[in-house]
């Protein structure tokens, strides 16, 4: 596995989170977390199921609102902007869902056209067609263009989901469990795709996962979310070079298994 480049901490911050708190009733999911994401880096957020990893990125993209704290994305406080401004911000933030969330009544082509024609109204039909085919080619699935989502495999759906997100050329990518439920070979392909997206489209990303192979393969930095807070943030080695009993089992299980 190729060693990922270290994050340039002198780079511009694309996401700044300070004192973020989120509770669902009496269940405190995020207990005042701080996090910065630098331009061009892939930051992996690791943690057990139910620790609030997905909640974190849903707050970043404005699908959920925080109880307290500041979430600044590309210089804008997400919970303080208008709905119109939020829609404009979302053009710059791509979100890849855990279950791909492809529109199942549309073909692959229509899935990719959907965000494009609604957000770039000046494009001609030929330009839309070209953009869709180019993006499908980038994820290696041009041959599925006329298929329905139900005809695709799990890995293909993930790739199409990523392609649909990338078609708007976002500056930031948020991946929610990109390798969940996939076989090891497909996981490897998705990891490679995430790295390729980073270099080819110059995106900064947050990757939510509990798959350490994915974390090691795609992350410039890793942040370990435990008990509602980031307990360890650093390179993969820095995070797991510890005797912390809450972190060690995570590593042991993933790699010993």
């Amino acid at each position: 596995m190729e060693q990922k480049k270290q994050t340039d901490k002198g780079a511009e911050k694309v996401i700044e989170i300070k004192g973020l708190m989120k509770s669902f009733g009496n269940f405190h999911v995020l207990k005042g977390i701080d996090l910065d994401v630098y331009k061009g880096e892939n930051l992996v957020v690791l943690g057990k199921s139910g620790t609030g990893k997905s909640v974190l990125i849903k707050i970043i993209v404005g699908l959920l609102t925080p109880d307290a704290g500041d979430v600044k994305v590309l210089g804008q406080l997400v919970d303080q902007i208008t709905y119109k401004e939020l829609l404009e911000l979302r053009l710059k933030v791509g979100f890849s869902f855990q279950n791909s969330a492809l529109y199942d009544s549309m073909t692959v082509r229509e899935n990719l056209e959907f965000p494009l024609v609604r957000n770039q109204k000046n494009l001609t039909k030929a330009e839309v067609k070209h953009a869709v085919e180019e993006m499908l080619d980038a994820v290696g699935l041009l041959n599925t263009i006329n298929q329905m989502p139900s005809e695709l495999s799990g890995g293909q759906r993930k790739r199409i989901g990523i392609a649909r997100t990338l078609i708007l050329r976002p500056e930031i990518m948020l991946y929610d469990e990109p390798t969940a439920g996939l076989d090891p070979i497909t996981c490897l392909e998705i990891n490679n795709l995430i790295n390729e997206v980073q270099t080819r489209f110059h995106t900064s990303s947050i990757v939510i996962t509990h798959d350490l192979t994915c974390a090691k393969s795609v992350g410039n930095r890793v942040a370990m979310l435990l008990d509602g807070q980031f307990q360890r943030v650093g390179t993969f080695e820095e995070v797991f070079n510890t005797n912390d009993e809450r972190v060690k089992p995570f590593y042991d299980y993933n790699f010993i298994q």
Partner: protein
Amino acid sequence: MESKTEQPLEQEKEVKGPGRLSRMFLTLYDVYKFIARFFKEGFLPPYELKELFRQCYEIGYRSALLISTTGFITGIVFTKQSRPSLSEFGATSWLPSLVGIALLRTLAPLLTGLIAAGKVGSSIGAELGSMRVTEQIDAMEVSATNPFKFLVSTRVLAATITIPILTFYTAMVGMCGALLNVSLSENTSAKAFFQSSLEQITFLDFTASTIKAILFGFTIGVVGCYQGYNSSKGTEGVGKAANSAVVIAMFLIFIEEVVSVQFFSLFRT
């Protein structure tokens, strides 16, 4: 702090735990906001005309066969059942106008509304519910598309436009059924039958029927969309959304029928 997506979070709902009455008022307020959002966003550009026409076609296509059958049978049965009573008074010549008025004023709007509530309402509830639980609605949100406009506004408008058209279609098919029944027992031409039916129908009947059908269509669209758009709890939630969409829409249609009958009777001498 208000949610940007107005997506209810199940955990939040459960823990707040207001009483049943408070919950009812909260839901009513939520429905009011939903309807207000439809009027605020539904008529402003960008227009989703392609999706609107697709929904109109879907609603019409989905209900056409069932409505045709039901309307036709209703026409036959109503005529058959009314004939003996009219015969007692030697007033069988009034049969076409009786059937025409009954169909236009009440039977056609009510039948169409109830059938559409079952066919269309459940389908909208299930479709949007399934899109909610599989995060397709969230996917629209994050791709900078307003899902309310694309999914809700188009469906509510389509139901509001299509149900009145289906209502008049039901009335027409019902009249054909009535004609069949009349033709089997006496020698009446189709022209004379329709002439006799239509001459008793007033502009008020036509207007009242149209207004009722618009109201029923709007109700079916709003209830189906509200239930589906706000569904949760996975597949169980989808089933619940589809079921509630039908039950609530039917209940509201009956209430609207009673109220509108009272209201329009004020204008009749």
